[in-house]
């Protein structure tokens, strides 16, 4: 009679879907990105091991979910992020974001985002230091900041960036450019990842396709990204129509920054999202609209991470107000016959 997919299969397929993104990140940013991916993943895996051993739970390394956390975490960090900080982020992500709650299934928030939020607060400079994509020699030399030693004053990458920059690189992400300098990057550059940004957030089209793979295999709820996109458009469009120069178009909002990765791979994480169809729409719309509001009116350039964390925290509430209507409990199904 059987059968349906297992947790292991789901997690494995999410890893498969993330691998092209990792490959693209490495192609774009070179060995620094590769090292970062390896370090965060290893750190997450070791942390998981450690906590499982501490609490006497059987190790859940085999379920791949911790690998997902590691990969996702690396993809949200700047490619030249110091490796030691990456290791800290991995430790926090799994230790604080997951193990303390009791492991897989019990965490309230997305572990990768918990790690990301922590380093955002702890290392504000490093996390906003962007390096150019497609720098010459990226496959043979590290971005200097990558190898920074723990607790040393940050390595200044400005000179390196200057010497490696492709024409016109400013060290700012499209979102920052838009926000502070009113320069809107061409959508096609965003689609194909020809911009600066976190290691794996830049190629919106690729991320979309990888996510679509999961949705088609029914290992991800398509309604979540759909709801996030809808939320973004609903909030961004009126502002854009009102004052096109000041407020970027919904399309730009969709394609820039971490939105695509967040919607496809982090908001859609099953554990932190609501159970019911109605709840899922509410949750997605909340993430989409919060993201735009933070981007437009907050002090930060990026809002997706906080939007998802807030929505994660609200999930139990959303669940409790969107219980399905149980068969035979009224609700207007009248006689048809």
């Amino acid at each position: 009679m059987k059968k349906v997919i297992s947790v292991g299969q789901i997690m494995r397929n999410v890893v498969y879907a993330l691998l092209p993104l990792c490959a693209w990140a490495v192609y774009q940013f070179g060995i620094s990105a590769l090292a970062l991916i390896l370090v965060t993943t290893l750190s997450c895996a070791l942390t998981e091991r450690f906590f499982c051993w501490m609490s006497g739970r059987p190790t859940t390394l085999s379920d791949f979910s911790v690998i997902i956390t590691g990969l996702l975490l690396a993809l949200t960090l700047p490619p030249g992020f110091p490796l030691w900080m990456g290791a800290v982020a991995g430790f926090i992500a799994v230790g604080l974001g997951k193990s303390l709650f009791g492991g897989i299934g019990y965490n309230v928030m997305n572990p990768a985002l918990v790690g990301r939020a922590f380093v955002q607060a702890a290392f504000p400079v490093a996390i906003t230091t962007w390096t150019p994509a497609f720098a010459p020699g990226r496959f043979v030399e590290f971005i200097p900041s990558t190898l920074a030693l723990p607790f040393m004053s940050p390595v200044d990458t400005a000179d390196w960036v200057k010497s490696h920059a492709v024409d016109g690189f400013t060290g700012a992400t499209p979102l920052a450019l838009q926000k502070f300098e009113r320069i809107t990057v061409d959508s096609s550059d965003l689609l194909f990842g020809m911009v600066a940004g976190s290691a794996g957030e830049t190629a919106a089209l690729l991320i979309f396709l990888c996510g679509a793979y999961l949705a088609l295999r029914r290992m991800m709820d398509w309604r979540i990204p759909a709801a996030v996109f809808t939320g973004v458009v609903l909030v961004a469009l009126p502002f854009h129509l009102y004052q096109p120069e000041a407020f970027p178009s919904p399309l730009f909002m969709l394609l820039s920054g971490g939105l695509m990765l967040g919607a496809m791979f982090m908001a859609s994480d099953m554990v932190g999202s609501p159970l019911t169809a109605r709840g899922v729409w509410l949750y997605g719309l909340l993430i989409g609209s919060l993201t735009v509001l933070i981007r437009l009116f907050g002090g930060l350039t990026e809002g997706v991470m906080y939007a998802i964390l807030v929505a994660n925290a609200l999930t139990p509430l959303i669940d409790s107000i969107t219980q399905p209507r149980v068969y035979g409990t009224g609700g207007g199904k009248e006689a048809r016959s």
Partner: protein
Amino acid sequence: MGFINLFRKHNTFSHGIHPLEHKESTAGLKIRRLPFAPRMVVPLLQHRGAPAVALVKPGQEVVRGEPIAEPGGFVSVPMHAPVTGRVKAVGELVPTAEGPKTPAIVIDTYEASTQQVLFDSPRDPARLTPEQLVEAVRETGMVGLGGAAFPSHVKLLPPKGKKIDLVVINGCECEPYLTCDHRVMLEQTGKMLAGIRMVMRALGAERAIIGVEDNKLDAVERIRAELPADLDIRCEAVETKYPQGAEKLLITSLTGREVPSGGIPADIGIAVYNVGTMAQLGDLVPRGRGLIERVVTVSGHGVRHPGNYLVPIGTPLRFLLEQVEADVGACEVVLGGPMMGMSTASLDVAITKGVSGVVVFEHREQDGLDRPVFPCIKCSACLDACPLHLNPSMLGQLAGVRDYARMEQEYHLNDCFECGSCSYVCPSNIPLTQYFRIAKAVNRETRETA
């Protein structure tokens, strides 16, 4: 959300699952008679309600078809001797698939007997009054043969003030492996329609709809060709989907109406009967006989000769398995369908009136069983599967912390009819249905001791 109904696929309910059917190996096989076992075991309680009371004594001779026990209350039915032979014991405790032992009448079969049924008292059902019809049905010892084993005559007497105007006949057979109803619809169409006619008359119902899953269109065709012109009986194909054969869901599929939570079909003027029950009634009532055998699908990879067998009630499971050359070594035997049936601990249980199938699994085939159980990952697959729109994920989490009271008060635990759809789809392999069964039992006990 009324407009959703516009998009509602015709003739089905929402949610549910599509397990692999495994019906190919028996669907084409004609019903065959199983030999009589040398010793028969007839439990006095084979149905919902009160046990029957034995009428025979040890040492007494009985003739096949003779009443051997009388009803022990209103919700109770008589029993009839499945073989000609000698009563060996009365009230002997025998194992059941459910677990607790139950008293039974044990009969040693006369090997030389021709095993003819000599207990005929022919009558014309068309001349009986509705009250006499109900009594006639009760005398047959009939219970729901679809698996519920609820005494049939009780459903013919709806609660005061409730008028049944529609009879729904259940020919869905949505459980994997089972094909006995399919065969009955094909081979006993006339008897089945005769049974429906009786039930309609006894209830005073104007209409009847026979619902058949659309994987059995040959049965739909056969039935439609034989529908009587003088009665309002229709035969409808419904979507092949588990648990289409659950009576509440079949009602929704056929009429678009819902049975109220905690209620019964009679609350909305409907009575539901299984096709096998109808065929037996159509056969037994006119002849004044009792229910002494039923069609059972015997299937599964552990069976050498799968098929649909006419099995005397009381045949020991072990004897049946020998006859079909089942591999009874390292395997699991399920009575009923694999989704809602019961895995039996002992091969010494008897085939009772409610057993529609015997499915023999080799262990490796019962996939999923040995898969590790993970915590709930909130994937919501179970919510999308539950035909009653419950929240099995939440129920499961509450069961995990033993908050059984909250399961009942806030999450409709008592609506759950243990169909197994949620456990089936759960990627974490959580035995949700099992949790719910335990939770209900604990709640029941708490209520009783309070």
